[in-house]
Structures are given as structure tokens and as C-alpha cells.
């Protein structure tokens, strides 16, 4: 039996029969912690980097919020050092740079890499029963390609004129012509190059994930026995592979326009800031099409993995199978497929052919359908379960309920006529923070708490986790829910000072409340960091399977050694057999656990 069930007591001395891995082979500090090719180390590197970047992006956001609550006032603490030349206040120029870099950092250095880079890397080999990724060196490079990007984004602030200031969407001509804005000088070129590095990093990851998932599954791990996390990572990788080249090409086209004088995006006869008229024959709308052709699928790249991980965690914390496993897979595939034909919903009023707007509207509204199906299935998963109200579960509940709000607000915007009014207002800002922060990031917080024991062999603190949850949840909703109201009141996004418009004057107190909530939420993140780093060294040690979960990763030691498994796992079940009648007196049935036929029949008859 020991070879069939490596999870329990035999696993630790599983070096019989020639299975023993060479645990002892020594690695230098550099190759173990820095230029590591071990997917677990790379995953952790991604995780810690993205958590730190989250604090940077959060700091930028708080500066934006400061301006909206106390426009033109001297900023506390950092004002005099950072904005000394402007008397410590945020100049309108600096304001545009702040929100541009906030979004850039959060999207390209936090959300995308934390999902695919950190959890994708850590979980894929462990959950499919492989000893590492298909291409370990490529994997290492995918992490190290983040650093040039971080460096380029950071360096862009020190260019003459300051950081990039054309928004994360970088619409030309504002982003393209040097004269258009101080930030559109060299800073914008660095931004574009940074973006390319992020892209290359994602692409290396995506190729690796696809290959690994297709080729390296353990015996018995059929496609429909894969955890939904793996499905989501697989679908995300495919999305990346098809969408990213378009953005990369667009980025190079813009760099060429800026440096080589090509005119992909530059029409002729434009006079910016009294510069000589442009020559050209390009189309600015082309950029928007290319950009959103990537960036709409990218919003699902920023969501699907979290959906997968939350499904895993929900089943485990409700001690019952995921409801509708296959519909879950199909709806993720549908989201990915439809995701390629809805990009135009960001361009309803951009001046593209209005007839196109109609088709994009129908496809966009229909993409809400698979999202709805998934939501119903999550509720079905919780229904009738034995809910463990721990930190992980709390985050999963937040994920589902915040996703409901974010998905529903999408319907207003998908309705073209309504979007005429709410496009480029705070309603949009509310929407995407509900889906990206409310759903994805809460899912990630849950996932950190859930897989931390596997990463470091220790548990994170529950009490601190719950306090972090409560503060973040309250802070989040008090910051972002009112943004719907601001949007309906007609407050445009990206305004350094909305209050000098009489019809927006009365929104100042509401904005001040939101800023206060945002600061509360920002401070709460130190609890997460503290909990994370403290538990890494001082958390209570845990065994292989602290949650009583089914996945293959829980059969490996915590933390798994080089090569992950001491015994090659063999898979007999799907990943969600919680509370199964054949599992005996446990309420879970690990994927590696073989149940003899007689026992299965007996359980069947018993029912």
C-alpha cells in the first residue's frame, strides 16, 4: 500500500525501491535562492516581489487619494521631499504621473505576476504531480525579466520631465508626441520598454505552463481530474499566448513612432504645443484596438487564476465537492473565448464605427453569462457544506460577493447607451476595482493563507489574518463602493481637481471619507506583510496536509524538497471528493488514495 498512498506515514522513509531523491545534494546560496530554477523558489520570489510592489502601488494610490481629499494641500510626510519644488503639494502634472504609475505597477507588477508568476509557478507542478516545470531555466528567466521592467518603470520617474503621464492605457497622441506632455519624453519610451519586458516574462511563463500541463501530469491525472486551479492556469496561459504578441507588437510600433519616425499612430497635420505640424498618415484608434485586443483578455488573465484557486479553497473549506466541475471548466473556456471578441467595449465612444458598437455590446453582455454560471456554482458549492469560517474561507466569501458586485456593474457599462454617460467616469473605476481588488486580490489573500503552509511548512496566524480581512474588507467597500455614486454624479476619472466644477463641488466630503477608508485599508496591509514574514520563521509547524485537502500538493512534504514528491503520485480521483461516502471516517479523499472496489460497492449499497 505504501507506494499507492504516499501521503501518510510511509512517505518520509520512502527511499526504498530506488525512489529516493537526492535530497542532500548541496546547492550554493546563489543557485538556491537567487538564480534558482526550482519552480517553488521562483514562485516564492514572484510572491514576495509582487507583495512588495503592491505596497509601492498602494503608496502611489494613497497619494492620488490625498489629492482628491485635500486638493492642492501640502502632502504630509513625503510632500516636502518628493514635491519640494512645488511647495510640497502634488502638481497636476505629478498627479497624472501618480495614477499612471499606480495602475501600471498594480496591473503589470502585482496582479498579473502574482497569479501566473507566483501561484502558477508554485502550484502547477505540485498539483499535477510533476517534479518541476518543463523548462526550468526559462522559468528562472521569466522571473528575472521582471527586474528590468521594475528598473525601467522606476527609472522613468527620473527622466527629464518626470514619469510617464498618459495613463496605463497610454493612448496616443498624448503618449506618443514628446511635446504633448512632460511625461511623454524619454519616460514614455522607458515605460514601453518596461512593458515589453513584462510581456516577455509572461510569455515565457505561459509557454512553460502550457507545456507542463499538457506533458507532465502524473499517471492517472486526466484532464478532467485536474484541479480547477490548473484548468484556470492552463486557460490563462493560452489567453496570454494569443493576446500578448499583439500588445508587444503595438508597443514596438509606438517605440518606432517615437524613435524612428514611423507613423503607425500619427495622423498628419497635428500641432501639439506649438510644435511643427506632424507628418504622417497613421491612425490613433489603431493603438486603442491593439491595446484592448490584449488588455481585455488581460483582465481575464487577472481573474481566471483567482477563480480557479477560490474554487479549490471553497471546496476544501466547505468540506464538499465543487458544484458543477465541468460547467466551471466550460465557463472558464467560454470567458476566454468570448474575451477575444469584446475589446471594443472600451471604445464605444472612441469614434469607431457605431455599428461595431452594437456587436461589441451583445458579445460583452453575453460574457456576463459564464461569470453568472460560475457564481451560481460557487454558491452551490457552499450549499449544504460544513463551512469552516477561517481566514481562507472569509477571503473566498469576499471574492464571490465582491465579484457579484463587479460583474453586475459591468452590465451597466456593457449597455452602450448607458456607457455614453458613464464611460470615463468613476463608475468605471468602481467596476474594475471590484473585480480586480475585490475579487482577484481577495482571492490571492486567501490563497496566500491557504498555500503558505505548503510553501514554508508553517501556518500563518489566524487572528492576524482575520483582523487583516475585516479591515481590508471594510476599507475596500468604503473606498470603492461610493465610486459608483461619483460616477453616476458625473465625476470624470483622472481629474486632479474635480471640485472647481460647480456640479461636482458637493462630492468633496464623500471623497474625504473614501480617502480615510483608503488609508485604513493601506495600513492594514502591513498586517499581512507582518503576518507573512513573521510566520515564515515563527509560525507553528505543520504537517503535509494541514487543511485535510485532496490535491496532490498535499501529499508532498511541507515544504516540498527538490523534485517535490518522495513517491511518484498516482491519481485515482478527481480533486474534490470531500465528504465522500467511500472515504471511510475521514471527510476527504486524496487524489492518490486508492479505494478498493469492494469498499466502493459497499458504500454504494449503504446509500
Amino acid at each position, binding site marked *: 500500500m505504501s507506494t499507492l498512498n504516499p501521503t501518510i506515514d510511509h512517505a518520509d522513509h520512502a527511499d526504498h525501491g530506488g525512489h529516493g531523491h537526492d535530497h542532500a545534494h548541496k546547492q550554493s546560496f546563489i543557485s538556491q535562492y537567487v538564480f534558482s530554477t526550482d519552480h517553488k523558489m521562483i514562485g516564492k520570489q514572484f510572491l514576495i516581489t509582487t507583495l512588495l510592489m503592491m505596497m509601492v502601488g498602494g503608496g502611489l494610490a494613497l497619494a492620488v487619494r490625498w489629492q482628491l481629499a485635500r486638493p492642492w494641500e501640502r502632502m504630509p510626510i513625503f510632500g516636502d521631499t518628493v514635491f519640494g519644488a512645488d511647495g510640497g503639494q502634488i502638481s497636476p*502634472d505629478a*498627479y*497624472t504621473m501618480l495614477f499612471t504609475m499606480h495602475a501600471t505597477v498594480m496591473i503589470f507588477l502585482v496582479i498579473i505576476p502574482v497569479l501566473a508568476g507566483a501561484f502558477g509557478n508554485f502550484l502547477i507542478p505540485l498539483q499535477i504531480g510533476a517534479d518541476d516545470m518543463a523548462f526550468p531555466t526559462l522559468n528562472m528567466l521569466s522571473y528575472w525579466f521582471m527586474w528590468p521592467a521594475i528598473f525601467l518603470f522606476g527609472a522613468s520617474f527620473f527622466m527629464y520631465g518626470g514619469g510617464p*503621464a498618459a495613463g496605463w492605457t497610454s493612448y*496616443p*497622441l*498624448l503618449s506618443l508626441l514628446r511635446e504633448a506632455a512632460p511625461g511623454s519624453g524619454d519616460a514614455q519610451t522607458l515605460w514601453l520598454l518596461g512593458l515589453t519586458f513584462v510581456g516577455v516574462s509572461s510569455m515565457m511563463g505561459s509557454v512553460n505552463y502550457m507545456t507542463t500541463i499538457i506533458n507532465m501530469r502524473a499517471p492517472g491525472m486526466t484532464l478532467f481530474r485536474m484541479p480547477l486551479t490548473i484548468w484556470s492556469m492552463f486557460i490563462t496561459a493560452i489567453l496570454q499566448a494569443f493576446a500578448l504578441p499583439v500588445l508587444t507588437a503595438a508597443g514596438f510600433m509606438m517605440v518606432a513612432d517615437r524613435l524612428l519616425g514611423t507613423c503607425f499612430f500619427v*495622423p498628419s497635420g497635428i*500641432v*501639439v504645443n506649438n510644435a511643427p505640424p506632424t507628418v504622417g498618415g497613421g491612425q*490613433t*484608434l489603431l493603438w486603442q484596438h491593439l491595446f484592448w485586443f490584449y488588455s481585455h483578455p488581460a483582465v481575464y488573465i487577472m481573474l481566471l487564476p483567482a477563480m480557479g484557486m477560490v474554487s479549490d479553497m471553497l471546496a476544501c473549506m*466547505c468540506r*464538499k*465537492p*465543487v*458544484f*458543477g466541475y*465541468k*460547467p466551471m471548466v466550460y465557463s472558464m473556456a467560454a470567458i476566454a473565448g468570448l474575451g477575444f471578441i469584446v475589446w471594443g467595449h472600451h471604445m464605444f*465612444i*472612441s469614434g469607431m464605427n*457605431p*455599428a461595431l458598437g*452594437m456587436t461589441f*455590446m*451583445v458579445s460583452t*453582455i*453575453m460574457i456576463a453569462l459564464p461569470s*453568472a*454560471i460560475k457564481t*451560481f456554482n460557487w*454558491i452551490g458549492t*457552499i*450549499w449544504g*457544506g460544513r*463551512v469552516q469560517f477561517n481566514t481562507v474561507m472569509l477571503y473566498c*466569501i469576499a471574492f464571490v460577493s465582491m465579484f*457579484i458586485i463587479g460583474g*453586475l456593474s459591468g*452590465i451597466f457599462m456593457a*449597455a452602450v*447607451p*448607458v456607457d*455614453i*454617460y458613464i464611460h*470615463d*467616469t468613476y463608475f468605471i473605476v468602481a467596476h474594475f476595482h471590484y473585480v480586480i481588488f475585490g475579487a482577484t486580490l481577495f482571492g490571492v489573500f486567501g490563497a496566500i493563507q491557504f498555500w503558505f503552509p505548503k510553501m514554508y511548512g508553517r501556518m500563518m496566524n489566524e487572528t492576524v489574518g482575520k483582523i487583516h480581512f475585516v479591515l481590508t474588507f471594510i476599507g475596500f467597500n468604503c473606498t470603492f463602493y*461610493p465610486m459608483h455614486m461619483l460616477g*453616476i*454624479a*458625473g465625476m*470624470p476619472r*483622472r*481629474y486632479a*481637481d*474635480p471640485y472647481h466644477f460647480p*456640479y461636482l463641488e458637493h462630492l468633496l*466630503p464623500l471623497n474625504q471619507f473614501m480617502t480615510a477608508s483608503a488609508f485604513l485599508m493601506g495600513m492594514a496591509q502591513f498586517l499581512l506583510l507582518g503576518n507573512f514574514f513573521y510566520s515564515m520563521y515563527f509560525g507553528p509547524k505543520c504537517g503535509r496536509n494541514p487543511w485535510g485537502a485532496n490535491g496532490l500538493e498535499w501529499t508532498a512534504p511541507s515544504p516540498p524538497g527538490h523534485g517535490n514528491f518522495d513517491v511518484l503520485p498516482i491519481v485515482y480521483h478527481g480533486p474534490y471528493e470531500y*465528504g465522500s461516502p467511500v472515504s471511510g471516517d475521514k471527510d476527504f479523499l486524496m487524489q492518490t488514495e486508492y479505494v478498493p472496489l469492494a469498499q466502493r460497492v459497499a458504500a454504494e449499497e449503504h446509500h
Partner: protein
Amino acid sequence: MHWWFPGDGNAYSTLGGKIDDLFYLILVIVSVTFVGTSAALGYALWRGAAIKADEKVWFSHGSHSLEVIWTIVPSAVLLFIALYQLDVWAEYRMKGFAKEKDGSPKIITVVAEVTARQFEWRIRYPANGKPLKPTPQPDDIYSVNELHVPTGGLVSITLRTDDVQHAFFVPMLRVKQDAVPGKMIPVWFDATMPGNYEMLCAELCGWGHYKMKAMLVAQSADDFEAWKDKASAEQFDDGYRKPAE
């Protein structure tokens, strides 16, 4: 506190009224969905917390009929939302190009050319009784950050930009349209009541994006003509007055 649509909450254009109706319709559908799903979620959690130690969980991998129901019902609702509003969009952005019912081409007066630039709005009107020409004419009338339009019936403006992208936004009328470099975009709307409506830029255009503050002045057709005469007289006034006899 007043955290709803700007002003008294009403839209001052026909299209705006329709947009608001759609908004409220979606709001109702969405609220019902939100309350329904949240109640289900809350109930499931409450039961999950109360489950007894000896009670078994509901060991179920899903239900085919439930999946069918919750695929068909939302898709019907979503399709309804999608198709129901196509017409409003067609009205707003497409029928202006089309013909009247009797086959004659539809005529909407173009009142002005609105040119956005960093960071102001420049507006050019044809002289009274003349149509707007694509190129400036000697007797054109100009104004900055103040767009005058007649009430009663659709009017059209030609939207352009001199430099980067901007967007023409009049919240009280629920009108918005990007101004795209190299393009002249017709925007048509009506103002149902005379009045002053705030007008601003809705597409990031640089550091001064937030300060493209302007006013749309809707006047009765007569007042509009009178204003144009007055503006024209002021503009072409060279200060020469006949000496007193």
C-alpha cells in the same frame, strides 16, 4: 447629501432621458439579481455554520437541471437587455446618417465646429443664415469655452481636436464623444430646455485635463440667432464710430 445624477437628477435631452430609463431598468434587474444571489449565498453560509457535528455534508457533484436553468434564465435576461437597447444606440449614433421615413435624406443642422485643444474648447459658428463650411470662412463667428446651441430639435456639432485626444462631455445632457486626432466626428443631440449646462473633457489629455471647463448655453432659436448677431457684431467691431454730427 445628493449623490445621484447631476443637478436635479433629470436629463435635459431626449436621448439622455432614454439613457436614464435604461439605467433604471438595468438598476432594477441588477438589484434583484444582487439581492437574490446574496441571499442565497448568505443562507448557504448560515446553514453551513449551523450544520451539526454528526450531520453529513450534501455530497453532490452538481445538478444537470440546475445548470440548465441557471444558464437559460440569465442568458434570456441578458439577451433581453442587449437587444432592448440596440434601438437607443441606433437612434443616437446611426440614424443621423440615415434617411427619413419617406426616403428623403435626414437633415440635422450643424450649428458649430467644436475644436478641443490643450486645454480649452474653440468653437466656430457660421454666420446667421449660412451653413457651416469645413474650412473657416471670413464671416464665421468664434467663441472659446462657450458653446451656444438652439433648443427644440436635434442639432449637430462637428467635433475635432487640434492636438491630442479629448472627449466632449455634457453631463446634464448625457452626451459624450471622443475627439480623435485627424478625424471630424459629427455629434448630434438636443437640449430640451434652455439653460446653461456644464461641459468638460472626459479623456485624459495632459496635465490640464481637469481644467477644460466650459459651458453649453442652450437658447431658444430666436435667442440663439440674436446671440449670433450680437457676437458677430462684437467680433467684427473695429472700434470705428461715426463722429457725432
